[in-house]
C-alpha cells in the first residue's frame, strides 16, 4: 500500500474529507443551489430526470452538473490510483429496483441521506424524523445481512462495461456545459421557478462535484455505510466522516446565515412557512427514509457511493444509478412525492416499496456467506 492510500484510508483522512464535503455542500447553497440542498443525490437525480424530459414536474428540471461530476471525479481518482476495475454480475436487475425504490422513498421525505444531514445542519427539525427513519431502515437491512442476505458476486469484465457510465456522465456534463437544447419545447428542460431554477454557477458545480467525487472515491465516504458499520460491527470509521460532514455544514451554515431552526419557519408577513423543500408529515418523513435506508443498505451503499462506484467501473452500481433516474421519474409521474400536502400516492408508494424491498431482503438469503 502506498503512503497516500494510507492517508485517505485513515481515521483522520475520513474526518478531514467529511469536513471538506460539509463545507463544500454549504457553500454550494450560498452560491445558488437550493436551500439545505447543497448536495442531494436524490433531488439532483430527480432534476436531471426532469431536464431529460422523463417527468413533467416543471419546478424540478435542471441537468445538475454535480452528479456527472461526482462520477467523473471518482473515475479520475480510480484511474490515478489503479483502482478502476470493470465488474458486473451481482443481481443488476435487483439493484435497478432497489435504486428505484430508494429514490421513491427519498422523494417522499424530500432528500437523500446527504440532504437529510444538510437539512439537519440547516435547522430543519423534520430531518430528525427522516434520519431516524434512515437509521431504522439501515437496521432492518443489517438484520437481513445478519441472516445471510447477499446480492451475489460481481465478476471482472471487459473495459467497455466499466467505461459506459463514466461516458454517459461525460455526455451529460457536456450537455450541461453547453446548455444544450434540441429545439423549441424539447430537452433539455429547465425550470424557471422553484428548486430547479436555483443553482450555483455551472463551473463551480462541476469543480465542486469533481472534488467531492475524487475525495469520496479515495476515502469510500458513505452516509449509509456509516450507520450500517456502527450497528453491525461497532466500526465507527465511516460514521466519523458522516458526523464531520454534518458538523462542518452546520458551522458553515452559521457563518453564512443559513441556519434557521424549527419544524416550520415564520414568513415575513407572520404566517407559517415550510422549511425549504420540506414538509411536516411525520409518518412520511420517517417512512420514506425507512424505505430509502433499507434499499441503500441492501444495495451496499448510499446514493452518493453508488455514483462513485459507477465511476470506478462497477456496472452493478451503474444499474442502481439508472434505477434512481427511473424511480425519480416514476415518483413524479405517479404522484408519489412528499409535500405539504403530500401527493396522493406517497403513502402507498412507501408501503408498496417496503413490501417489495422486504421481499428482496427475505429471498436474498441463498448460500449464506459465512454471516452470523
Amino acid at each position, binding site marked *: 500500500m502506498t503512503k497516500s492510500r494510507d492517508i485517505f484510508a485513515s481515521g483522520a483522512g475520513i474526518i478531514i474529507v467529511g469536513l471538506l464535503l460539509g463545507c463544500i455542500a454549504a457553500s454550494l447553497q450560498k452560491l445558488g443551489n437550493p436551500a439545505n440542498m447543497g448536495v442531494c443525490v436524490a433531488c439532483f437525480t430527480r432534476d436531471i430526470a426532469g431536464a431529460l424530459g422523463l417527468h413533467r414536474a416543471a419546478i424540478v428540471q435542471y441537468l445538475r452538473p454535480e452528479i456527472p461530476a461526482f462520477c467523473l471525479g471518482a473515475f479520475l481518482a480510480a484511474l490515478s490510483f489503479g483502482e478502476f476495475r470493470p465488474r458486473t454480475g451481482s443481481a443488476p436487475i435487483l439493484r435497478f429496483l432497489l435504486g428505484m425504490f430508494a429514490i421513491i422513498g427519498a422523494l417522499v421525505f424530500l432528500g437523500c441521506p446527504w440532504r437529510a444531514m444538510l437539512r439537519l445542519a440547516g435547522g430543519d427539525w423534520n430531518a430528525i424524523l427522516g434520519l431516524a427513519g434512515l437509521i431504522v431502515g439501515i437496521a432492518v437491512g443489517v438484520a437481513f445481512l445478519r441472516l445471510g442476505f447477499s446480492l451475489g458476486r460481481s*465478476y471482472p469484465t471487459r473495459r467497455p462495461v466499466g467505461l459506459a457510465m463514466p461516458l454517459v456522465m461525460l455526455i451529460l456534463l457536456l450537455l450541461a456545459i453547453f446548455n444544450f437544447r434540441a429545439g423549441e419545447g424539447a430537452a433539455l428542460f429547465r425550470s424557471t421557478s422553484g428548486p430547479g431554477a436555483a443553482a450555483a454557477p455551472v463551473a463551480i458545480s462541476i469543480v465542486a462535484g469533481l472534488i467531492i467525487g475524487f475525495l469520496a472515491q479515495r476515502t469510500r465516504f458513505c452516509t449509509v*455505510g456509516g450507520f450500517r458499520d456502527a450497528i453491525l*460491527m461497532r466500526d465507527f470509521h465511516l460514521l466519523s466522516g458522516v458526523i464531520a460532514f454534518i458538523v462542518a455544514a452546520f458551522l458553515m451554515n452559521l457563518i453564512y446565515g443559513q441556519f434557521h431552526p424549527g419544524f416550520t419557519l415564520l414568513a415575513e408577513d407572520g404566517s407559517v412557512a415550510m422549511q425549504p423543500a420540506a414538509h411536516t408529515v411525520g409518518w412520511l418523513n420517517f417512512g420514506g427514509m425507512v424505505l430509502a435506508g433499507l434499499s441503500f443498505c441492501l444495495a451496499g451503499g448510499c446514493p452518493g457511493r453508488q455514483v462513485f462506484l459507477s465511476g470506478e467501473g462497477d456496472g452493478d452500481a451503474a444499474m442502481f444509478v439508472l434505477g434512481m433516474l427511473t424511480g425519480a421519474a416514476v415518483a413524479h409521474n405517479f404522484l408519489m412525492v412528499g409535500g405539504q400536502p403530500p401527493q396522493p400516492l406517497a403513502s402507498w408508494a412507501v408501503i408498496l416499496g417496503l413490501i417489495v424491498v422486504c421481499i428482496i431482503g427475505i429471498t436474498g438469503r441463498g448460500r449464506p456467506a459465512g454471516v452470523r
Partner: protein
Amino acid sequence: MADGNKVDARGLSCPQPALMTRHALQVAELGEVRVLVDTMTQVQNCTRAAEQLGWRVSVEEKEGTFELAFRK
C-alpha cells in the same frame, strides 16, 4: 465461502467481506486466516475489521486478487 480459515469474499458488496472476515476471525480465535477480495476498498474494510479484533495483516496482490493473511 468461509471454511474456518479460508474466506473467498471476491465480488461481494459492502459490508459482506468485512462481515465474513470478522466472523471467520471470531471462529478461529487464534492462528492464521486467509481472505480473498478484489478491490482495495475491501482490503481496507477487512483490515479494519481484523485490527479491531487484534489481528495483524499482510496483503499480497496477484492478478487483480488481493490475498489477506491475518495472524494472531
